[in-house]
């Protein structure tokens, strides 16, 4: 069983986001990049599946800021093989990203591709489904449970309200992972450092490309001020105000 996990690097939302001078993109000067949180879930699920079914787990990322760190972190968590795709361009669209992943994965003889259900910057669509159609392999998105039975995967797809669809999917397939069966494991810094010394990142040149078919004309922060009325003061003063607000709004206390 060869499980491939495409990883996307996305801006860390804990940092403040600013729009750049063009007015159509994020100002990259202060941005920090991190692994898309749903890709962490995909990697965790891949490692859990390997424990049950055996095989290898390959983490693959496009060449970008923090890509090496993200791949070494995957190795520290247990990924067997690391691949970086070069030449896919600066800030590729979702379509271009998925195309680069699909072309690279096509040569890896993967049985299963697990990636995050979405990322915070997927303006032109989600990675898992795009990869599936580019590779012409089946896809299921919003997945919270996977088990392998021979050459099929039994997967649970989540709908609203906690209902789930169960599907049997012929492998190879790509799944958009919403949540791993366990909280994604954490790799301590020391372990990541050791992985940096011992693991190697293979490089693969990207081949095909794809267009988003649309362009951004404006990026802006949602209007402030129209939103919440902000309360200030000590915790006690705030609590007093909140109780008054609740009562004034007909909340029965």
């Amino acid at each position, binding site marked *: 069983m060869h499980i491939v996990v495409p990883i996307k690097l996305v801006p860390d*939302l804990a940092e403040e986001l600013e729009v750049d001078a063009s007015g159509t993109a*994020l100002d990259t000067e202060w941005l920090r990049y991190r692994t898309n949180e749903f890709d962490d879930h995909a990697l965790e699920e891949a490692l859990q599946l390997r424990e049950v079914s055996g095989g290898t787990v390959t983490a693959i990322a496009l060449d970008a800021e923090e890509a090496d760190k993200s791949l070494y972190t995957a190795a520290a968590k247990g990924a067997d093989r690391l691949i970086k795709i070069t030449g896919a361009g600066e800030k590729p669209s979702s*379509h271009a990203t998925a195309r680069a992943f699909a072309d690279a994965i096509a040569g890896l003889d993967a049985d299963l591709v697990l990636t995050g259900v979405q990322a*915070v*910057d*997927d*303006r*032109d*669509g989600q990675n898992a*489904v*795009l990869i599936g159609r*580019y590779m012409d392999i*089946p*896809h*299921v*998105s*919003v997945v919270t449970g996977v088990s392998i039975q021979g050459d099929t995967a*039994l997967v649970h*797809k*989540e*709908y*609203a309200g*906690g*209902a*789930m*669809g*169960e*599907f*049997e999917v012929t492998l190879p*397939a790509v799944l*958009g992972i919403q*949540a791993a069966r366990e*909280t994604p494991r954490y790799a301590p810094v020391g372990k990541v450092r050791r992985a940096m010394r011992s693991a190697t990142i293979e490089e693969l040149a990207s081949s095909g490309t794809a*267009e*988003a*078919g*649309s*362009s*951004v*004309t*404006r*990026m*802006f*922060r*949602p209007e*402030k001020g129209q*939103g*919440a*009325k*902000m*309360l200030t003061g000590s*915790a006690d003063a705030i*609590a007093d105000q909140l*109780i008054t*607000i*609740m009562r004034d709004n*007909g*909340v*029965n*206390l």
Partner: protein
Amino acid sequence: MSADVFIVTEHLGGSLDDVTFELLGKGRDLATSTGGQLVAVLMGSGAEGLAAELGAADRVLYVDHPALADFNPATHGAALAAVVGERSPQIVLVGNTSMGMDLAAALSVDADLPLIAYATGVEHGADGLTVTSQLYAGKMHVESRPTGGRCIISVMAGSFDGSAGRGGGSPEVESYAAPASIESSRVRFVRLMEPEAGDVDITQSDILVSIGRGIQSEDNIPMAQELADALGGAVSASRPIIDNKWLPKTRQVGKSGVKVKPRLYLALGISGAPEHWEGMKDSQLIIAVNTDPNAPIFDFAHYGVTEDIFEVMPALTARVT
């Protein structure tokens, strides 16, 4: 290319999802502007009865096949690609829902059409389409325009008024033959699993004390429970709390949880991601406590406090016990 606007209907367990009506409402405006018809694509097996509820559309394209009886990313995807490929609508609206996520991006590749996702606003005028998307977990909005005239747009549930899409006339129902390829699908539907009944039905509670990742540890949940008890409410939560198994799934508010409309929604350490907003935006009074002044929750809460929840929770509890 036609000037038509297609909307992809969504149904589960025999009833249409709210998002279908929201798309119909918006689609009506768009079709008026493009000068085309508003067409609802309905896929199912023996589901033509649902067409009666799609009166806001000019026409229903109904694709009937046993392989479409239950939603299936592969069969529904292939059927949709066939319809859109042949009829060439100008605009296709899909919900950015669990089903829609499997359909929209696949259609983009199959029909070679641009996709703009996470839309909360769609306008069509003399100079074409402008789509507003909510990105970066709601921290940024982005306007985009398709390069050609045509586009698939996946719309966040709750973005448009559903009442505009309900009722109306009796649309013409046209049967459309499913492509033969769906007979042998690599994805097979096995069964629908209903959610397990929970200990507490948070949709029935007038007061919700809702906790997010800001609660930091399972050990801090009793502090929220004490506040909920004092207020006479229940504890609900954002998705990460449920993924961590700190609370049961039935307590989850949002896109993949439940929709709630309490009299008071007290959001404690919740950032306000679009998927959370979907589930609680209709609450009568929303009060948010979050240490980050830029948290998106403050864009739609009525009152906001940038304080530590561990200060505010006990202060509130003390006042109502």
